[in-house]
């Protein structure tokens, strides 16, 4: 992304204010991106505690880098590059395996989809839970980079070009990653249609 395009990125402007010592702007950035970063990391490492720990580290790194920050890319590209880097390292080191709180250990506090305005029955909850476990297993079975690409494409609605910048690869490599990832997911989840 060129300098002119980056200048239109409001988040980058906020980060430049943080660089100038405006800590309130850091609060605005945190408020705006906290949820997406934590959710991305939850789905990447599939462990609440580790995901929050990593998300803290992401924002801590953003804060630490304030003095050297240059808006050479979209702010979210930079943010998710940090998040992805930390997630891939955590997966490589097996941090998500060591912790006690894997997503599939305790799902009682997970939001349950309401199919109507009445409370879901125990049976409905169990069906939902089974489907959810299948989705999680299917996603966690993907190679790490494919998983990151799918999560950014599906939940963050990022363009191929932005995913390419986050993963430091070409756009065609991203298309290939996504094509293979969705092919695997179709094979594992098509029966859920």
């Amino acid at each position, binding site marked *: 992304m060129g300098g002119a395009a980056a200048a239109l990125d409001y988040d980058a402007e906020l980060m430049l204010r943080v660089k100038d010592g405006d800590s309130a702007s850091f609060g605005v950035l*945190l408020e705006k991106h*906290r*949820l997406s970063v*934590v*959710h991305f990391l*939850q*789905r990447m490492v599939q462990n*609440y505690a580790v995901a*929050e720990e990593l*998300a*803290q580290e992401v*924002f*801590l790194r953003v*804060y*630490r880098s304030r003095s050297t920050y240059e808006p050479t890319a979209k702010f979210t590209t930079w943010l998710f590059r940090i998040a992805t880097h930390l997630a891939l390292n955590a997966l490589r080191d097996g941090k998500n395996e060591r912790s006690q709180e894997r*997503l599939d250990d305790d799902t009682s*506090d*997970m*939001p349950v*989809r309401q199919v109507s305005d009445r409370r879901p029955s125990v049976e409905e909850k169990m069906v*939902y839970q089974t*489907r*959810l476990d*299948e*989705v*999680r297993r*299917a*996603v966690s079975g993907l190679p790490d980079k494919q998983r990151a690409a*799918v999560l950014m494409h*599906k*939940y963050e609605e990022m363009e*191929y070009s932005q995913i390419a910048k986050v993963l430091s690869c070409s756009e*065609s490599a991203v*298309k*290939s990653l*996504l*094509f293979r990832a*969705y092919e695997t*997911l*179709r094979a594992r*989840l*098509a*029966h*859920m*249609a």
Partner: protein
Amino acid sequence: MNCPIENQESAEILLAYCSRKLNPASAAILEEHIQICPACRDFARGQRAVWEALDAWEAAPVSADFDRRLYARIATEVSLWDRLLRPIRPLLTLQGLPVAAAALVVITAGLLLDRPAGPVRPNDAETSAALEAVTPDQAEPILQEMEMMQELNRLAQPQSPDSKI
């Protein structure tokens, strides 16, 4: 239209269609094709199932104390720097100190660079003893010889205008 499933590059049209990101005009053309192409129909059905399955995966809410913990970590880092810099902070506020510090650096660098990088000098004590052993009478011819050597050296320089050697 050409079947998009035939190559990976154009299959992105199918992905965009299934994630409802394709513009209406292109979506209409693709839908016509899907009606007559079983492979694309299967792809689209499978991809929609994946999309809906992923939609069902809601992430957990963020901890209520997430920001508090983050700001505590930031404060810890800031206070660590504060503690490290505290002993020298009064010095940093003194006027003229930066100039003095810069001068000290320049002098130190000058002294270090001025040291000849040649053979090891003889011991200072030995040199001193040798100088004390030379009487004024002995010193005069030695000085004359040194002057002569210097003159010869000057003449021996090829770029010297007086060069004769």
